[in-house]
């Protein structure tokens, strides 16, 4: 049976492993498309920007593929968005790592983790919630997720209220943020076992809720998907 799900675009800008993100979103019921240019975002219901590494080369690669303006427009329109690791950091205004100007959707910048006993911060660590959000439905407070990074977003001013959850490695930093429909996680849900898959499923559920108009155009019966949540 062909599964009809919300259309989630995963941005490919040469920033490493996309296989597990694609697989995790597909398992959660999304119709996933890996996209490498701005035009391909037009018929998507949700957008995922993954990535690891430094901000400047990532922004340069996004710019080369004509993706910066479409991603900015997507965020400005408050459409469902999930930034993962570097994809979250890019939401801030700039990066201390290399001085790169980033997307600027959130006030603040990306800073080196302070007082960290080891860097990079690699491994499973606890994600402690500051407030409830559907992104974490069905996931225990304090659950372990997998992190691989040395920098993290430091929200300033009103962006501080966007923080959904914290993690501590040396200093405490923002592990998840949400402002409207724009979400971001510093950890890798696609590498965080069953809780990670649940979180991706929760994001797909949020995308689906926004995508209802076009899904209703699908012939009756085609949208009946047992087990989807």
């Amino acid at each position, binding site marked *: 049976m062909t599964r009809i799900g919300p259309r989630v675009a995963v941005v490919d800008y040469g920033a490493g492993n996309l296989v*597990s993100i694609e697989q*995790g979103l597909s398992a959660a019921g999304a119709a996933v498309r890996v996209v490498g240019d701005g035009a391909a975002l037009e018929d998507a219901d949700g957008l995922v920007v993954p990535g690891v590494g430094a901000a400047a080369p990532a922004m340069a690669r996004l710019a080369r593929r004509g993706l910066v303006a479409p991603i900015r427009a997507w965020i400005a329109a408050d459409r469902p968005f999930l930034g993962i690791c570097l994809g979250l950091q890019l939401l801030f205004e700039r990066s201390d790592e290399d001085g790169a100007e980033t997307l600027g959707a959130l006030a603040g910048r990306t800073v080196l983790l302070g007082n960290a006993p080891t860097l990079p911060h690699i491994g499973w*660590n606890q994600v402690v919630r500051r407030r409830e959000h559907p992104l974490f439905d069905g996931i225990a407070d304090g659950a372990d997720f997998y992190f*691989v990074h040395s920098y993290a977003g430091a929200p300033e001013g009103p962006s501080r209220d966007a923080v959904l959850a914290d993690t501590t*490695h040396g200093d405490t930093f923002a592990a998840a943020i949400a402002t409207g429909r724009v979400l971001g996680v510093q950890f890798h849900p*696609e590498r965080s076992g*069953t809780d990670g898959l649940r979180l991706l499923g929760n994001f797909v559920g949020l995308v689906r809720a926004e995508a209802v108009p076009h899904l209703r155009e699908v012939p009756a019966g085609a949208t009946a998907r047992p087990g989807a949540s």
Partner: protein
Amino acid sequence: MLRRRVIPCLDVANGRVVKGTRFVDLVDEGDPPELAERYAIEGADELVFLDITAAPERRGTLLDIVERTARRAFIPLTVGGGVRSVAEMRDVLRAGADKVSLNTAAVADPTLVSRCASRFGRQAVVVAIDARATADGGWEVVVKGGREPAGLDARAWAERVVALGAGELLVTSIDRDGTGQGFDTALLRAITDRVGVPVIASGGAAGPADFVAAVRDGGADAVLAASIFHRRIHSIAAVKVAMADAGLPVRHVPVAAA
């Protein structure tokens, strides 16, 4: 709090998991993605594939198993063995690996470490150091499966590759590897005292107490083992219980149908 990781290592040759005294008398142990998924369910925090395929023309097989593994086991995957260039590293990452481990190729050309780190980020670059004790109480780096001295002091080499951009070190005691005598905690401590990146201990695990010692005495962030898990001498869960009992932070996983 950051958890101390338990990492099973799978030796892979020609697309199959093999077992044997490293590199000789190989016995087919099964399909890598299948075993990877089993370990993920049993609580592995991460997986390492060590590709020991002799023939470079068979490398496509490795990319295929990396991709099939990434689609089944939703935990981090490091691939080591035979990566000699930025392009080869890119292919392995695109297939679904999170990190690549460099060993002999980094010794031959240390700039490979910095080139890979600047392209993919240091978090994706693991440098594997195979070390052997020397008569003067130090350790020397060996390559080619431990057969050949590289002419480098292991501690100095560790500092150098971290300065070049390694985000993690996989430190194997060649003296202990396969012996079941426990990890060389003095070697581990000599390196963890000198570098700020996470260090994965390898070589010599016989039982859960060895994992505790690698972290507590050696300062390791993660502990890797192969045969004790493959041969089901100890489960990952049993190792984690021992670590938790010793006061070490570990990730608890749902009770697996092991």
